[in-house]
């Protein structure tokens, strides 16, 4: 997968010219052009509670004739700043849009680094685009997300801040980058209540956000049935290339969705069975979806959280 398109690998220094004495870990960011004008940085599979560095989600951008759209900015100001530096090594066009695929902290805390992305004469500040449910999600959780980030990263949380969208998507929205249009689609509650996908018809590239996990255990923070329904719809989308929220870029979206469907289906089935058989939440955490354990990374931590989320909901069925 790593050699998937065997294309450009860019290393960008965030602090050009500065003596690299104490370079922060995210100062250099690996970027790959996976389709013409489509650049991705792949996050690493680390858990929030073990070695988290803010750089676990896939982030990147799409370059049009007149402007650039960024899709997710990473889990800290530093990651966002490194992405911005990498972007500026590719193009000096204005960043017209910063799109949040959903409100989770590993995807949006880098937004703050893009507020000044166009200050060097490229144009007005970017518009921040998100799902219609995103402002409420960030308002409800912002304090606690920032508190957690400071606990996780300490001083490296730096200038990380949440930026509410300046423009929201209720259903669909088309963004024009000049000679290139991006089709945004807002989904009913699935992975979260703020999932947004981005499709680039020119290269038939789909940014699925966290509606698709590859390798990393899918984490549930919305509605499992809604997620499965969204996956059915994504399966029918004519994408040649899919950039998941986590894991490698794939040309075989169908197989990746099937893998994820198998996990979510097993999770739902086993939590329901546990409840029906009178197994409590703790014992269900240890047994639910156990057959999927060897197929995913970070399985124990994420699967337990999923059961913890799902069990109290399914008890009411």
């Amino acid at each position, binding site marked *: 997968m790593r050699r998937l398109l065997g294309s450009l690998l860019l290393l960008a220094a965030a602090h050009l010219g500065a003596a690299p004495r104490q370079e922060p870990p995210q100062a250099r960011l690996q970027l790959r052009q996976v389709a013409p004008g489509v650049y991705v940085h792949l996050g690493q599979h680390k858990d929030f*509670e073990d070695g*988290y560095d803010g750089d676990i989600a896939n982030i990147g951008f799409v370059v049009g004739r007149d402007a650039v759209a960024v899709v997710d900015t990473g889990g800290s100001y530093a990651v966002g700043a490194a992405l911005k530096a990498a972007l500026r090594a590719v193009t000096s066009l204005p960043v017209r849009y910063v799109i949040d695929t959903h409100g989770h902290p590993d995807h949006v805390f880098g937004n703050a680094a893009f507020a000044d992305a166009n200050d060097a004469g490229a144009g007005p500040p970017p518009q921040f685009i998100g799902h219609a449910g995103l402002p409420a999600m960030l308002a*409800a959780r912002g304090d606690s997300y920032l508190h*957690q980030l400071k606990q996780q*990263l300490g001083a490296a949380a730096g200038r990380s801040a949440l930026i509410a969208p300046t423009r929201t998507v209720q259903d669909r929205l088309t963004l024009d980058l000049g000679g290139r249009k991006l089709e945004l689609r807002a989904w009913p509650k699935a992975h979260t209540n703020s999932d947004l996908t981005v499709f680039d018809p020119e290269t038939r590239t789909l940014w699925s956000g966290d509606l698709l996990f590859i390798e990393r255990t899918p984490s549930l923070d919305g509605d499992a049935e809604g997620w499965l329904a969204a996956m059915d719809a994504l399966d029918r989308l004519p994408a040649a290339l899919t950039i998941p929220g986590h894991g490698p870029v794939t040309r075989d979206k169908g197989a990746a969705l099937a893998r994820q469907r198998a996990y979510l289906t097993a999770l739902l089935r086993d939590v329901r069975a546990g409840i029906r058989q009178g197994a*409590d939440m703790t014992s269900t955490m240890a047994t639910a979806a156990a057959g999927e354990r060897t197929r995913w990374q970070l399985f*124990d931590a994420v699967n337990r*959280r999923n*059961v913890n989320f799902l069990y*109290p909901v399914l008890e009411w069925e």
Partner: protein
Amino acid sequence: MNTRPTPSPQLRLLSGLAALAMLAGPEPASAQAPEASWPALQQAWFSGKTLEPAPFIHLSAPTRAPSGDQVPFAFSIDHPMTAARYIKTVSVFVDGNPVPLTAAFHFTPQSGKAEIATRIRLESDSPVHVVAESNDGRLYVNSVIVKASGGCSGPAVGEDAAARAAAGRMKLALDDPFKRGELNRATLLVRHPMNTGMQRDPATHGFRPAYFIDKVSVTYNGKPVLTADTAIGVSENPSIRFGFVADQPGALQVLVHDNEGGSFRQAMDVGG
């Protein structure tokens, strides 16, 4: 960079002595609850009284909980439950929470066993202290350390209007077939947002007012088997498993009261 140990999946039951040793010894580096909070709580709630370490208070909680919102927590006390000698009150304190007293459960001999399984909130890593008082006034204590965070100020999961509309819906069921004259266990689920007063309201950018169940009363054929004074440390949509002894078929009745004056009833016939 905050590096913490990898979560351990297994439950840990700490004996009273082990728990005391942990409290007396140096705190683990990542335990964030202030060490001094328990002595202060003990002074506030049990001034001048002796708390006897009690390994027969069995505690069950995850060493590291996946979420601070819904932390499974259970106690079961090996102690006679006869008219002459029984545990009458068990108080659960989460030392590090903004409101440490999470619930006080009142039992009777007809409870059969002083035991509860429920779900609680943890704002930060914290010891959880359980203090049991017997009918002759003796006080027993045990504790366990749980790592979890964000449970009190963290986001309310549901939509507030929908949660309020559904408040008071209940499910009540026996865990196993009815056993006459023996300990039976029942699980009560109550729909209620249990708003802590520390959660943001996305609509106003202020805080949602505290809105929580403050009393749960359970009777069997009119005689109390469990009365619980509950507070904001009990998780949203409370789940409470309790025991009762029934000599004959009858009616298990539940009355739930919240801090806004709402009251809700549920009943089921058992053994018929």
